[in-house]
């Protein structure tokens, strides 16, 4: 059965791109543009991973992270944003709130690798060879 990923972002292009690339990799991807949609999906069809941005329609990313933790405490969250620039800030604050953090300028392959790592699908060293 395909693993389920929820992508939360206010930008449709970003959502579509992520959905396309992760579907190609064999995942089932749902998308949400606002916290309401996101919470509904988490309740009805709990994902194995959430990829989200801070900037979302009709809501605040930090608040949504707290709500996600309440709804699905075991669901890993990958924060994918271009809103925070200071690495020290990321290390000291944001990474404590989420499972993983990636800047939006990171390449897609890096994002996919991180998703695979978080879902336990990362190829082993022998598979890479």
């Amino acid at each position: 059965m395909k693993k389920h990923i929820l992508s939360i972002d206010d930008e449709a292009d970003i959502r579509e791109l992520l959905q396309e690339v992760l579907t190609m990799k064999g995942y089932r991807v749902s998308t949400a543009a606002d916290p309401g949609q996101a919470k509904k999906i988490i309740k009805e069809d709990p994902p194995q991973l959430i990829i989200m941005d801070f900037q979302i329609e009709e809501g605040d990313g930090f608040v949504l992270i707290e709500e996600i933790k309440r709804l699905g405490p075991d669901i890993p969250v990958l924060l994918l944003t271009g809103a925070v620039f200071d690495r020290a800030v990321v290390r000291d604050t944001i990474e404590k709130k989420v499972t993983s953090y990636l800047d939006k300028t990171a390449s897609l392959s890096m994002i996919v690798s991180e998703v695979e790592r978080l879902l336990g699908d990362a190829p082993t060293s022998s598979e890479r060879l």
Partner: protein
Amino acid sequence: MKETIEKRVVGLFLLMLVILAYVAWSSLHNIKENIKSNAWVNHTHAVIIHAGDILSYLHAGDAALRTFLITGDDRDRQGYRVAYSTMVENWTEAEALTRQSEEEKALHERFLDLSLLISNRMEIAGTMARGRAQGGLDFVRQQFNSHPDVESISKIERAVANIEKTENGLLKERDEQQHLQAQATKTTVYTGLGVNFVLLALVVWLMRDDLIARRKAAQALEEANAMLEAKVQERTAELLKSNQSLKQENLERRWSYQALDHQLRYNQLIINSIAELVFVISRALNISRVNPAVVHATNWEPQELISQSIERVLQFPPDPVGGASQNPLTAAMREGRQLLDRPANLLARSGRIIPVYYTLIPLHDQDKIVGGVVTVRMQLSAQQQRQS
């Protein structure tokens, strides 16, 4: 190869056909010869029978004649007359049977010789019969004693026996010929059939060889097809992989563009949201970017300011230490120094002069100064200061 085998098979079948035709012709020919021989045998038997009958009727006629000679009764004349007459008929038929054939010419001569003996015999018989009727038994006895050929019957018997012997010899000869002919026919048929069986076996062998070759060719074709199929699959997989890679690259490019666009818009939003006037300048102090606060405060449109010197909108007071007014930004940019809250005048598009404080932050990219940011805030009047 295929054509050669087909030609060979057709050739062998033609040869078989020729052999069968020869066997059939030979058999028919022999049957005809056999029929002819049978006719000849029948004819010969007829001749032998007639020859035998000549002798039989001669004996019967002689016996009847002797009866008449003894009795002298006219009623006994009929017996020898009929017998002699039948004997002559048989001779005539035998003579006629042997007259046509070249092969029986000698035999025909013997029949002619036999006719002389028979004529003599019949003449003697006539003389005896006439003498008996006229002179009685004495005359008959006298004739028997005086006539030297009165017992010529033994000559006739020998002649007939010779004829029969000759005919039987011919029959035997013909029988041997027929036997040889039958043997030859049998040999021809068996040999033809045998050769045909051998040829048929050769055809079967050739066809089996051809079938094996065809099977091998089909197998080779199948293997070639499988190899081609494998190559096609391999190439398809490569193309699929290449396509996947291209798709991935395309996605990556789109993602980079989206991420950069997002970042740029985000940065733009931050700059645009600053209430102070922001001028981004080059190292040569030319304006490269302004925020909406600049447009709002001066009424200058961005396109009227971009690429112009900052001195077009910002006037610096004369240097209190030395003489003429000098742009302090030039030295600060060269040295990479910050200038904080310095007084200056902002020139609006309408010509109005607004007293302001400015701050210069040079932009360092690693070791180089690539430009600077000048932020400008209004100088508050005493009343404004009190209100704030």
